[in-house]
């Protein structure tokens, strides 16, 4: 399919569309943790690297089939998500943010010293298994399941935790358990995105998954709209395309990211699409007519 597509679409654009898809999956995972449940995670690149390295090593060194390797990478990331989620049982928001940064740093330093991962040089020659169809097929599944989840009992409880933990507890929500759950689900998607990335790029090294990458992902969620699926998608699309357009002024790109965060927080803390939720829109329009 990719061969067919590349006849009609410029490979450069095809590449960008693919990266957009991968970023949507990564950002949806982070949105679940930070946007929906309100647990600031600034180490999403850490989960991404776990998925990337695990799946790449599985396909390269053990001849594991790509889908299985992808799943394996996601599961390893989810497992770490569980352990990172655990401290949230005791920690207030800001401390948690530091722990997530610390975690991602530790992971990065680990891979810098990890023999099978090629240490600082990284891994190259990863089979290019990620296709247009895999990415966008998985995007569709992720969006669908995410939307379903967020309009379910558990999803509402996630939002409730973000809004007021004590009130959520008095509604019978086991907040500690659900916070860990959000971390597990979010990091699973992080690992999935990492695996797709590794098998598209041929090449990964620890620097790809640094603090800047985590912030870039956070920006997507914040720009689009915390807790909103359409918002997260919009954020991922904009922040994948924008840097390409700003390529000429690459130096200023990060500065722009930084300023963007401040300006957004001051003028539009809920992001571009605020808290628009697919489910709400549907119901609102449906019932609005009867009134």
């Amino acid at each position, binding site marked *: 399919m990719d061969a067919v597509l590349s006849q009609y679409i410029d490979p450069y654009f095809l590449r960008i569309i693919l990266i957009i898809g991968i970023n949507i999956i990564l950002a949806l995972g982070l949105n679940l943790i930070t946007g929906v449940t309100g647990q600031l995670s600034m180490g999403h690149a850490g989960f991404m690297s776990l998925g990337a390295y695990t799946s790449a090593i599985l396909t390269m060194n053990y001849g594991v089939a790509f889908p299985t390797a992808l799943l394996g990478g996601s599961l390893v990331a989810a497992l770490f998500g569980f352990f990172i989620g655990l401290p949230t049982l005791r920690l207030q928001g800001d401390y948690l943010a530091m722990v997530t940064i610390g975690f991602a740093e530790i992971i990065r330093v680990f891979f810098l010293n990890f023999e099978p991962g090629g240490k600082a040089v990284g891994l190259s020659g990863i089979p290019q298994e990620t296709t247009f169809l895999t990415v966008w097929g998985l995007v569709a599944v992720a969006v669908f*399941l995410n939307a*379903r*989840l967020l309009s*379910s*009992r*558990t*999803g*509402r*409880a996630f*939002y*409730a935790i973000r*809004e*007021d933990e*004590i*009130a*959520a*507890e*008095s*509604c*019978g*929500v*086991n*907040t500690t358990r659900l916070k860990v*759950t959000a971390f597990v*689900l979010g990091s699973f998607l992080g690992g999935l995105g990492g695996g797709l990335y590794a098998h598209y790029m041929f090449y990964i090294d620890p620097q790809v998954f640094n603090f800047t990458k985590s912030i870039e992902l956070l920006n997507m969620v914040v720009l689009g709209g915390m807790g909103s699926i359409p918002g997260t998608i919009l954020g991922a699309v904009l922040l994948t395309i924008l840097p390409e357009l700003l390529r000429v002024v690459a130096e200023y790109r990060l500065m722009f990211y930084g300023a963007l965060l401040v300006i957004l927080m001051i003028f539009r803390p*809920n992001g571009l699409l605020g*808290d628009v939720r697919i489910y*709400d829109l549907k*119901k*609102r329009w449906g*019932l609005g007519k009867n009134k």
Partner: protein
Amino acid sequence: MPILELKGISQEFGGLRALDSIDMAIETGEIFGIIGPNGAGKTTLFNIITGIYEPTQGEVIFNGGNINRLPAYQVARQGIARTYQNIRLFKKLSVLDNIRVGRYGVTKNGIFSGMLGLPLARREESQTMAEAMRLLELVGLYDRRWEYADSLAYGEQRRLEIARALALNPTLLLLDEPAAGMNSSEKVELVSLIRRIREEMELTILLVEHDMNLVMNICDRIAVLDYGRRIALDTPIRVKNDAAVIQSYLGVEA
């Protein structure tokens, strides 16, 4: 058998005694008021009952079982719902969703069930929706169900919080200063709402309130706290005439 019993409850915060061996028993079906000056320990008592604090000493017995060590969410699932003195709504959730979150403790479907839309999730969702609609009607917020909770007026927010608590199908409802900040017509509405709730839903209500008229008006019995001690527990009329109460509390206002 009383629905809730407090036996010798004491609470200390860093050497400061906020509650001093409080005893009281709430009978099933009554409206029980707790009054007392600021800092008397009323909200602390609520926090102990709902599992936010574990008491330094004493026992909380609910339906015959000790709930001292249960975490807050477990207490809620046992059937104790509450509102808060300073209103704790889920501000950026719709009015409807606030109530639906309130149903969390009485529903069961998990992540996968919800994600995949399994029968259990569907059934519970439709029950939750029906119950939410009923409660929206009860508190008169049906037309505003899609709005953010924080866009409601103050009195409406108080009513929404009560509706959210009721969504838990509680047998015991704790109201922490439900009339605070309300004007007199809102208070009248509140009184009739509380009465209606008790009759229609057959539950026991425990309330903390500053407004004397309101308390005297709707409560079957009243306990008076002063500096963490219970100085009286009786019917409104008798409490009103109790010498200790008049001296320590009512005397100030009368």
